[in-house]
């Protein structure tokens, strides 16, 4: 019973931590995916008096493409209501329209910088960024991501603390055995074999429970998330990759904690 209790005192914080980490990764993927989509759709419209010369980057963001808008198309759309002289005049006076596509989706702050940078180009008359709608949802997603990261960090610290306390208790429980083995020439790692075994078993159990939980959540995600938000979740979501990540983490974290304490124990 005591062994079971100490076993769960390792697995429980680890499972919570791994779940938080998985959620953080999923949200990060959603944000990245959304960012990619809006970056593809998003463009700054620029109106210039003369054709634009080459612009390679704006506020340190690479310019992916500059697409000129067809002047003929614009004239055609309005020529029905105009006389021939007005169309001629329009053809002479109509400025050049461009859509500037960026490699990254800019924040509001960066957009201000971009606007200022574009304004320094003398032939540019007007700049339209159309950023408000995109930015609202994007900012909200970033906020959720940051909150989850803060929560994950808190859970991570707490879990490491609980984990190290439990490993310390195990060292204390096995203290006599460890010192007897060391008196017979066994190394500290050799003497700590029983602790390593419990840690390995706990970590393995944790990875199975966490993977099963994650699998259960992702398989039934429609119960937790609205269909509109579901559309944001990337379709290429690799369950295998998530499980491998959980497995590696669930083994790494307890063993790193264990070896940290082992060094402390050795110097003590």
């Amino acid at each position: 019973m005591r062994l079971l209790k100490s076993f769960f005192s390792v697995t429980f914080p680890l499972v919570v931590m791994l779940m938080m980490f998985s959620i953080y990764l999923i949200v990060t993927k959603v944000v990245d995916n959304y960012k990619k989509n809006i970056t593809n759709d998003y463009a700054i419209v620029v109106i210039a008096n003369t054709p634009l010369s080459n612009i390679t980057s704006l506020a340190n963001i690479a310019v992916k493409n500059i697409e000129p808008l067809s002047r003929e198309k614009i004239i055609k759309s309005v020529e029905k209501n105009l006389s021939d002289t007005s169309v001629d005049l329009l053809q002479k006076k109509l400025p050049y329209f461009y859509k500037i596509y960026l490699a990254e989706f800019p924040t509001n702050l960066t957009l201000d910088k971009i606007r200022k940078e574009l304004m320094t180009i003398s032939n540019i008359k007007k700049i339209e960024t159309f950023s408000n709608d995109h930015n609202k949802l994007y900012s909200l997603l970033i906020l959720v991501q940051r909150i989850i990261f803060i929560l994950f960090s808190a859970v991570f610290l707490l879990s490491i603390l609980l984990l190290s306390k439990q490993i310390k208790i195990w060292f204390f429980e096995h203290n006599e055995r460890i010192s007897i083995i060391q008196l017979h020439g066994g190394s500290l790692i050799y003497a700590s074999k029983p602790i390593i075994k419990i840690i390995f078993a706990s970590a393995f159990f944790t990875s199975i429970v966490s993977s099963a939980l994650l699998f259960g959540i992702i398989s039934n995600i429609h119960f937790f998330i609205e269909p509109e938000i579901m559309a944001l979740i990337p379709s290429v979501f690799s369950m295998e990759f998530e499980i491998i990540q959980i497995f590696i983490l669930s083994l790494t974290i307890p063993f790193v904690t264990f070896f940290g304490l082992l060094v402390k124990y050795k110097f003590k």
Partner: protein
Amino acid sequence: MILAKDLTLSYNKKKNIIENANFKVKEKDFIFISGSSGSGKSTLLKSFYGELPVVRGHLFVNKYDLLKKNTGQLLSLRKELGIVFQDYKLIQEYTIEENIMLPLKVHNYTDEVSTSQVKKLLKHVKLSHKIGAYPAELSGGEQQRVAVARALAHNPSIILADEPTGNLDDYSSDMIWTLLKNANEHLGITIVVVTHRIPTDLGIKYRRFNIDEGVVYEAS
């Protein structure tokens, strides 16, 4: 085997327990270290297996200089020693066979060799009938016989024993002395025993070091 040159030992800087000790323990010697309670007998023995650091002077055990030892050398030295304690220091969660097997496991002996060696030793210490028992199921004398068997398991060059009969009745004490005597006589193992009660009828040539107020001298 063991060489002390101006050896000084202390638990703290205020008072030295052993001061400027000079002695030599040769191969196949049977040594008794005696003295009154608190004289530093066990302290001296602890320094032989590196449990207590050398404060000043030199202490060589086998080829190891205990003043300049590192962890690796300390573990290597301990692999060459057999240690018997007054409180047996058996691992309670292990059976008596597993306890005896401990130094063999540390030496990476195969399971086959270890099992056969343990059987021989259990027979030697007259505990074959206790196979599978845990230390808590044995009497004090029997536990100490297991401890002696464990000390003999890997054929050490030196056995260090700290009051091995301190907690035992006369019958059990006799058995322990016989086992240590046989190890010295037949296996050529150097024996160093800390005791306040040297057996009168050991029937073997031995040397005796006495400790008095931190001074180690060989008594005739």
